[in-house]
């Protein structure tokens, strides 16, 4: 019995849920299993997945980054606007990318050196990035359209490689890099060590503060990539996404897949599983013509279900209870 319940950790529960939903939708909805629909299903959560990977890297080190969506929207919108106003595409992209890295560097320093809790530091930075961007960088409308000279960059969100839509390819590449980084590089392993036990990581000789900063900078860079995919597929960057509940969807994907918010627990696979469940749900409900307000309710119920099942199957004991969950 104990072995059986151990097998069902949250990731497996969510994966099972996903498979069950897939079966139900496949039996009830016409053309649900068509390859083109499955591709569009995965594609619809590609951006969420990419952002989820950025969030994963931060959460593993026992942090959280609420500024991801703001960084994504403002840096990419600014790039597009610079390009539209005559800057060459390469330097416009470079400027936006550096802006994303610069802002997340500030975030990282605030958290690692000024020791401000990540929840507050990133909440404040999200507001700052959005406010500063809307006041000084994106001077026209809050939706910035793709400039005509977008060129090859557009292929990040449009078109396909060997029949697979590009957003999926980009998400897969980011996932692979994140996997290799977390699994095989020293800084990657250090992130796990810090998330598991910061004090002992420091005693063990891990350069804790620089690694913390690096986490946020990497997440900021990933946010820029996610923004490019968003902008090129919808042919516009809508900075209003900052006001939406997208950042909660990103956290949802990460938590749903079984990444522990208390740090040190989780991997790339968790994010993929979480994103797939959301993708199956959204796609099925869109086919059923369910309004997005109802979709949000269903989504949150599924999250609650996953958490409840997890806490029943894997009850908290004294040790895990002390981990300092958010």
């Amino acid at each position: 019995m104990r072995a059986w319940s151990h097998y069902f950790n949250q990731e497996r529960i969510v994966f099972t849920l996903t498979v069950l939903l897939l079966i139900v939708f496949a039996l009830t909805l016409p053309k649900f299993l068509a390859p083109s629909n499955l591709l569009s299903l995965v594609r619809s959560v590609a951006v969420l997945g990419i952002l989820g990977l950025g969030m994963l890297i931060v959460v593993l080190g026992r942090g959280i980054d609420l500024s991801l969506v703001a960084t994504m929207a403002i840096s990419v919108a600014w790039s597009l606007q610079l390009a539209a106003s005559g800057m060459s595409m390469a330097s416009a992209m470079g400027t936006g990318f550096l802006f994303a890295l610069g802002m997340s560097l500030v975030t990282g320093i605030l958290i690692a050196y000024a020791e401000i809790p990540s929840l507050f530091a990133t909440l404040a930075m999200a507001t700052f990035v959005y406010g500063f961007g809307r006041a000084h960088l994106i001077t026209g409308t809050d939706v910035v359209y793709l400039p005509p000279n977008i060129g090859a960059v557009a292929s990040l969100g449009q078109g396909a490689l060997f029949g697979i839509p590009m957003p999926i390819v980009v998400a897969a590449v980011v996932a692979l890099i994140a996997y290799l980084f977390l699994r095989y590089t020293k800084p990657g392993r250090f992130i796990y060590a810090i998330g598991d036990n910061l004090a002992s990581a420091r005693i063990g000789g891990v350069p804790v503060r620089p690694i913390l900063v690096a986490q946020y900078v990497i997440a900021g860079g990933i946010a820029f990539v996610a923004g490019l995919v968003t902008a090129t597929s919808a042919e516009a960057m809508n900075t209003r996404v900052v006001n939406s509940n997208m950042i909660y969807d990103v956290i949802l994907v990460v938590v749903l897949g079984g990444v522990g918010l208390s740090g040190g627990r989780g991997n790339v696979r968790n994010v993929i599983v979480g994103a797939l469940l959301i993708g199956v749900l959204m796609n099925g409900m869109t086919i059923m013509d369910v309004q997005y307000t109802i979709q949000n309710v269903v989504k949150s119920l599924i999250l609650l279900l996953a958490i409840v099942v997890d806490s029943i199957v894997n009850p908290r004991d004294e040790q895990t209870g002390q981990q300092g969950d958010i």
Partner: protein
Amino acid sequence: MNTMHRLALAATAFVGIAAAAVGARADDMNDPYRQPALDALKGKSIVYLPISIGFDLAQAWGGVVKTEAERYGMKFKSQDPNWNTGAMAQGLTSLIAEKPDVIVTQNPDLQSLARLLKQANAAGIVVIQMNMQGAVQTDAFVGPDFIAMGEQAAKMVVAKCGKGTETSHKVSIVQGVLTGGVSYYQVQGIKKVFDANPEIKVVSSQAADWDASKARAITETVLQQNSDLCGVIDVWDGQGVGTGAAIKQAGKQDQVYFVTSGGGAQSMCDRLADGTFSAAINYDAPGMGRDAFTAISAVLQGKQKAGTVKFQLYSPTRVMTKADVKAGTCWDPEQYAKLLR
């Protein structure tokens, strides 16, 4: 010499009479109605409170009203609640206490501000509602007749996908926010026409929350499910960009007839020119700004209590296709955004 003298005298007299005549004419031309009109406007204050000042329509309305207000020595102030209904209600509440002469606003949905707008009117503040009318009528509503516009868009789709056409008759509707006036009333009009044309099959009618990314995702899935889709109506061109991108990326631009509507900003012309929109109904946002100022001017000159006379000022609309797009057909939001900074 004598004749010369007389001639000179005559000439002087003529010039004198002519001058007097001209002078008298100039006096006659002093318009007795101008000064009272100017006095009715001068020094009055207008506060502009749209859902957000960050999008093209609100920039054009506010830019035009501000330009005209300043021309007549009125005070103009704008507030930007940035799509936050709560902040908007709060702003409106403090404005009622502050008592400006005029509030120009835009409802995020039918109900949220209705009570506050009624209170503002009762407090003697002239209230002009732009584009999205709430559940209450105030001094003026300025905006297109969205029910008629919905009917018009639906008829355009029926012409391409209805009876007698060699198509699937399948149509999809992309709404904005379900309870937003622009979306709600257009859908009423669309439904009316489609009900009268039972061959039309509405395969999807979903809200995209005014967001192009959501509109793109919805339309992509709809196209997967209905590869023979014939027509799409999107209630606003700002999110229609995403809907159009989904059609384009599915390679269905020749098959799917896509109608949307908006205020005629440059982005609308660009999307018509590159074929993202098959047709667009343009309700000319700067023209709406002018209508709003006309309403303000009329109500203030009327000197009656705010809310005494209530009227609906429906904006003229124009159907545009690729062929109508020329240099200068559409306007640049940046030009108005600058005015509101």
